[in-house]
């Protein structure tokens, strides 16, 4: 995908997805595949670092909505970190900050596990 990329890192038992670019209805399947692979391999402590994410549409939020319950029911979580104001605004408009752990920095997200 030209305008969306994912880099995957592992710190101890925590999987970190660094997402960059634009997450919309076209690119959401890329993130979905990455999350599915992690969950299938029992990597359920997941941080999505949004530092380089420029843009998100509701299709992107829909990916998190689809998997968060599964991950939590397995004892894990999907935490989000390093969002810029514009991306956070979209999460906020839909009331996501009450449902998701959204942290200022990746280090805070690691500590929160």
């Amino acid at each position, binding site marked *: 995908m030209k*305008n969306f990329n994912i880099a995957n890192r592992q710190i101890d038992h925590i999987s970190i997805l660094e997402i960059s670019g*634009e997450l*919309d*209805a*076209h690119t959401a399947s890329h993130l979905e595949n990455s999350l599915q692979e992690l969950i299938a391999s029992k990597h359920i402590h997941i941080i999505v670092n949004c530092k380089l994410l420029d*843009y998100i*549409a*509701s*299709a992107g*939020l*829909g*990916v998190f*909505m*689809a*998997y*968060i*319950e*599964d991950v939590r029911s397995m004892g894990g979580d999907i935490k989000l970190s390093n969002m810029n*104001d*514009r991306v956070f*605004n*979209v999460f906020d*408009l*839909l*009331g*996501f900050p009450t*449902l998701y752990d959204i942290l200022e920095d990746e280090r805070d997200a690691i500590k929160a596990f």
Partner: protein
Amino acid sequence: MTNSHKILTLTVHSSTKHLSEVRDFIGDYVKTLGLPQREISEIQLAVDEAYTNIIKHAYKNIPSNLVKVEIGASSTHLCISIYDKGESFKPNQYKAPDILKRVKNKQRGGMGVFLIQKLMDQVQYSRKGTMNEIRMIKNL
């Protein structure tokens, strides 16, 4: 009449691969109006959501169909219309999503219309003949 008051149109096929092109088209126009970056992003998002809904719901993901995006501005309003010839949206049957319930039920979607309504000042749906129009207005 200044350049920003011109009406510009973009016609694209109904495919999500054109989403970034549509956002750029809107962004380039709105930037000439001198709006802050946050408002520019919000207007791009509203158009993205409307176009995505047309692709998915009006045209059922069939990419050969066409969607026309039209943008214009006066000194007081920005007006964006998106036209399609697919199945029309019925706003009276729309219910705002209960996000918590959707997360519990692992449902997604249904958030686009809600976002459009939050981000724009007026949203009107109409159908003339076989043509649907969503008109979104932002007060300047």
